[in-house]
């Protein structure tokens, strides 16, 4: 596999493979020197057209733990602000001799365009409302590490599905691993058509919350009010928020997840974020190991997977 653009690129078998590789890298991350030489000599560029400190740092940490060289191209300090086109920027970066480019862009589809222009591997770190495959992989890994397997689990994705790349990738990944996926949202925050989506829909969180194995809360953005998609954040919280009250309806063994950054008091109350069922912090720490697995899968030679770097440090 050359690029990771969407979960569908991987398929169920590919997702399983990433999970298995991630197990190894979780072990590496636990070492005193969490570093292996697997990608020594490789160069990974993060090309972030949209601010995302956590995803960028997660990728860069993953690349460094694999001994790859990293470069960061952030738009605010670049020639993009001088009017350079997307294609020119990408071709300029590639001319520096790179092996992979990690792309975040506010517009859906940009990683596909870049993949059509360059020889390097392209990793989608989030495009518009479309896909965020490594988030879905770390979500799967987090669930798998608690539940053993996603097969047959009942997972609700709650909130702004329409504008969410996380939701689109998670639906594909969870369904590929055999989970039953439920979308819980007001009709204004669902995509216009769900034809072909492997999901069930409900508009009532209270009706389903007691039967969930996983509740996955999506971030609500404030501009949704000005677009007349919601009357108010207060009303959203009352109907769809994981409040302290609703937390009581959730099973003891259920998981609470959120891709971050959280709006505490809107989609998730502080009590829920800090509840023992919350795995939100584990999602972040698994992110590094999952991204190591993805980089290794795309760029690795197959050797040197977990050996400590000889003579390094």
């Amino acid at each position, binding site marked *: 596999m050359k690029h990771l653009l969407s979960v569908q690129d991987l398929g169920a078998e590919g997702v399983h493979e990433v999970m298995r590789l991630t197990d190894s890298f979780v072990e590496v991350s636990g070492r005193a020197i969490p570093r292996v030489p697997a990608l020594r000599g490789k160069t990974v560029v993060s090309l972030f057209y949209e601010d995302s400190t956590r995803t960028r740092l997660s990728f860069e940490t993953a690349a460094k733990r694999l001994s790859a060289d990293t470069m960061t191209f952030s738009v605010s300090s670049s020639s993009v602000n001088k009017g350079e086109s*997307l294609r020119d920027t990408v071709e300029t970066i590639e001319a520096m001799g790179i092996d992979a480019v990690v792309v975040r862009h506010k517009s859906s589809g940009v990683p596909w*365009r870049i993949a059509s222009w360059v020889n390097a591997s392209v990793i989608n770190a989030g495009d518009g409302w479309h896909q965020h495959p490594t988030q879905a992989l770390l979500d799967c890994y987090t669930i798998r590490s608690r539940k053993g397997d996603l097969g047959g689990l009942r997972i609700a994705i709650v909130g702004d599905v329409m504008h969410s790349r996380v939701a689109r990738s998670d639906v594909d990944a969870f369904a590929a691993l055999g989970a039953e996926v439920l979308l819980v949202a007001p009709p204004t925050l669902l995509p216009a058509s769900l034809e072909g989506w492997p999901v069930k829909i409900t508009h009532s969180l209270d009706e389903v919350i007691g039967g969930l194995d996983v509740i996955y809360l999506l971030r609500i953005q404030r501009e949704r009010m000005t677009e007349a998609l919601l009357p108010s954040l207060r009303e959203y919280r009352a109907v769809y928020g994981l409040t302290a009250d609703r937390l009581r309806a959730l099973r003891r063994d259920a998981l609470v997840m959120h891709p971050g950054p959280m709006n505490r008091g809107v989609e998730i109350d502080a009590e829920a974020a800090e509840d023992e069922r919350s795995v939100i912090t584990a999602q972040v720490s698994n992110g590094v190991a999952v991204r190591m697995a993805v980089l290794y899968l795309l760029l690795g030679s197959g050797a040197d997977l977990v050996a400590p770097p000889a003579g390094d440090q």
Partner: protein
Amino acid sequence: MNGHALVIRGGEVVDHRGRRVADVAVRAGTITAVEPGIDAGPGVRVLDASGCVVAPGLVDLHAHLREPGGEAAETVETASRAAARGGYTAVVAMPNTDPPIDSAAVARQVLELGRHALCDVGVAGAITVGRKGEQLAPMAELADLGVRLFTDDGSGVQDTRLMRRALQYSLALGITLAQHCEDASLAAGGQMHEGTWSSKLGMPGIPAEAEELMVMRDIALVRLTGAPVHFLHLSTAGSVAMVRAAKDQGLPVTAEAAPHHFTLTHAEAESFDPVYKVNPPLRTDDDVAAVKRGLADGAIDAIATDHAPHTQEAKEAPWDEAPPGMLGLETALSLALTELGLPIDAVLALMSWQPARIAGLIEHGGPVAPGRPANVTVIDPAERWTVQPERLASRARNTPYAGRPLVGRVRHTVLRGEAVVVGGEAQR
């Protein structure tokens, strides 16, 4: 050039009067004879039309020539060369230039550029000043220059009262208002057709109803005012059905459809290549079928290209930053012949005499008869070719049909007696 004599030999003449095997003799820009076995005589150029259809030149109601203001993408000259290669002898230039064609001065500039072009260039005037939808443009002044179509194309006139007034005002001038039907608030932010693909691809959608609401409103305004309306680039099954019903009621409405709306669907957006971004957007299979049906049964009067050149840089942007629009002039006829399954005289009705009538272009659209201006295109309906963007005459390259095999191609185009295209190649 007009003094040159030529004979178009060996073809079958097809115009609104019918079909007959005949040669066509031209002198001084005028057709002098249409009969079998014309003797060319010395010094008379002969254009071979064997196996070909000899038809009145095509007429495009809807082309963005980009001049003034967008010369990096296209000029009147380059667009006219593309038009001539596509079989057109006349195109109507849309007014969304920079500055827009909302004054006699800009209209005169474009008309003047058109005098040197490889096809006749008519202009459409804006309905409102600056195409802003706020104040009527000087339509009488523009009508005095021969402008017969008016539109704010690129956007629709949103204000219903203003549109009503514009239609009333048009009644005194013998002109037709043409609408880009799109309810701006419903379409706001939309990047493609709203449906299965926009949902999957995570792109803001433009529902079919954004177009249909304005078609519905304007049909009501036609009923209210009695003024004619021409509907630009219909793209949805609902729009076609409403226009068909309005015609059945005897209302003075006409409509056009663009080739991309009967050949491509929203599934193309999966590539995220903005070469497929266009407004109105590519729709569903059902909409494509409805547009084809409308072209076959008369609900839609004309095929218009909506030729919209854009620079490579503009189209190499992210989808939502790229401008909408695609090239059309050099592929429209071949797509119609290849994809519609209609007899060639029906295709020519949609591309020549019916649009000529809508645009009021009396020198175009035939018939191919002695005394008529020699605006003629010669079409080889059997030629197979493949679209190669780098070989197009347009300055821009944004065709969505690269690599597509087509059947039927223009061999020669004659503009007022001048052979501007011979053997598929522009002569200047």
